[in-house]
């Protein structure tokens, strides 16, 4: 198993106090993870010693910057087992990955009456781009409901995923329920009706081994900042022949082959989809994050998270009037969203913060999920490789204190 104390020493922020005398207990990794020193230092080093614009320069710095940036792409490609680094497109975040597919693939391929399918547990990033696309193309957006325990209602899949469906986009792991969905099965179902399958892996890639070739997904999206990497960088993976057939998304430098005032032709993959000076330092930082996680081993990361999540679910179940959303521990990732009767999530988060415990309160960018669950908002604790059982114990103590302040 992972040596959590050794890991904690890698994260500078975990050495800080939240308030004087109050250690920081960071249980908000699902919103954005903390960064280990090698990631911070990779970017620091880049800006101090090899900063230059990439791709076009014939000088040492530009060459070094290009090697570092493109080398990171290759390691990221290996990390998700892409067949080719050209299938790995740098974007700002998972959100942009969905928008890129919606604008580029969507507008070139959808006709009025065509259907797209998502699920009712999606993050807004995997809802709103398709709503905009549906409005602009006349395509119809459908959703697969979930069961009361937060698992997808697969019995309804055959009615919803049909010959009309052109794209099925769904999350591998819910950021609220924690549900780990049957990704491979869903992708196969999509392919059986001739639809493309896109996976929201924002909560999967940071936490478990992901193999895009084994899944056989057509597109996959994730963000660097949730996996020990920097903000401002994310990945769209796409199968080569699909990406090649797509028109570009944004226009500008680097994504062209030739520009005349009469018209332009496009660069090869991956550059066709990367217009302008990229987030070079962030790409290098994501490469360092991938190295860090690879060194830990994603199997080990996953096993540790299962252990700590199990521990947390049991500990939280001891708190009276606390209700955890989502399925049993066997089928979930490291998030625990909950409500406490008589105590609003805002008040929970605020009171926990005073004890140094950072959790999130709100709808976690999954308003439909909450609405369908009949609640406005939840409190959410999320766990990562540096979470200890002692921290979980503190969470429980702090929750009980909060209840006492509210005379519950």
């Amino acid at each position, binding site marked *: 198993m992972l040596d959590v104390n050794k890991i904690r020493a890698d994260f500078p922020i975990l050495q800080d106090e939240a308030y004087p005398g109050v250690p920081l207990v960071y249980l908000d990794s699902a919103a954005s993870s903390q960064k280990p020193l090698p990631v911070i230092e990779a970017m620091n080093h880049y800006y101090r010693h090899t900063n230059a614009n990439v791709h076009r320069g014939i000088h040492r710095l530009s060459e070094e910057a290009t090697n570092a940036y493109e080398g990171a792409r290759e390691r990221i490609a290996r990390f998700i087992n892409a067949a080719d680094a050209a299938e790995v497109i740098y974007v700002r975040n998972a959100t942009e990955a969905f928008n890129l597919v919606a604008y580029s693939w969507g507008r070139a391929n959808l006709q009025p009456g065509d259907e797209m399918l998502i699920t009712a547990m999606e993050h807004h990033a995997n809802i709103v781009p398709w709503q905009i696309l549906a409005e602009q193309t006349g395509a119809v957006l459908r959703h697969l409901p979930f069961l009361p325990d937060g698992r997808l209602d697969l019995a309804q899949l055959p009615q919803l995923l049909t010959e009309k469906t052109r794209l099925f986009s769904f999350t591998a792991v819910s950021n609220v329920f924690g549900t780990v969905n049957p990704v491979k099965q869903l992708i196969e179902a999509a392919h059986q009706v001739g639809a493309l399958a896109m996976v929201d892996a924002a909560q999967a890639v940071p936490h478990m081994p992901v193999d895009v070739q084994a899944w056989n997904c057509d597109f996959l999206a994730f963000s660097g900042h949730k996996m020990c990497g920097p903000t401002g960088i994310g990945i769209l993976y796409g199968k080569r022949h699909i990406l090649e057939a797509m028109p570009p998304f944004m226009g500008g430098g680097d994504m062209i082959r030739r520009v005349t005032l009469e018209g332009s032709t496009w660069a090869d993959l991956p550059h066709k989809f990367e217009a302008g000076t990229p987030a070079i330092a962030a790409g290098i930082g994501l490469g360092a994050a991938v190295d860090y996680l690879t060194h830990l081993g994603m199997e080990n990361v996953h096993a540790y998270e299962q252990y700590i999540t199990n521990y947390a679910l049991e500990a939280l179940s001891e708190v009276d009037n606390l209700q955890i959303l989502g399925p049993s521990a066997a089928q979930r990732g490291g998030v625990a969203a909950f409500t406490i009767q008589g105590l*609003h*999530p*805002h*008040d929970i988060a*605020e*009171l926990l913060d*005073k004890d140094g415990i950072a959790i999130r*309160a*709100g*709808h976690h960018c999954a*308003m439909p999920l*909450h609405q369908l669950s009949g609640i*406005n*908002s939840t409190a959410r604790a999320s766990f990562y490789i540096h979470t200890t059982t002692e921290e979980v114990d503190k969470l429980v103590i702090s929750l009980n204190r909060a209840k006492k*302040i*509210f*005379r519950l």
Partner: protein
Amino acid sequence: MDESIYREQIIDLYEHPLNRGHLETADWSYEEDNPLCGDVIRIDVKLDENQRVADVAWSGEGCAISQAAASLLTEEIKGKTLEEVRSFDKDELLELIGVKLSMARVKCALLSLKVLKAGAYGMPDPEEMRKFDNPQ
């Protein structure tokens, strides 16, 4: 101001809200939510012949801060003229609440005032409403 935002009075008001409910015959009613958390407040106002607030009631769901603020606000505006309601300042409400709030929580505190003003203006005046979305 109090250091802990959960001073006794806030918890008291959360447990025992003031002016909570609905008015049968309101001159105006307005409802609005804080999309960040889904909390909703509705305020019903009845004016007397002098355009003063004769009665006011609020309903809705929310955190202790937004609920306490609704109680304090509705209590405060009783007897005020329509003009006074329109010009009631967010700082006055924050002072009534009397605890130091983070930026995220200021939005909770101001939700009821936003609803009250939108009603008092007969519709959401974008300039006026924006102040509540970007407090300070």
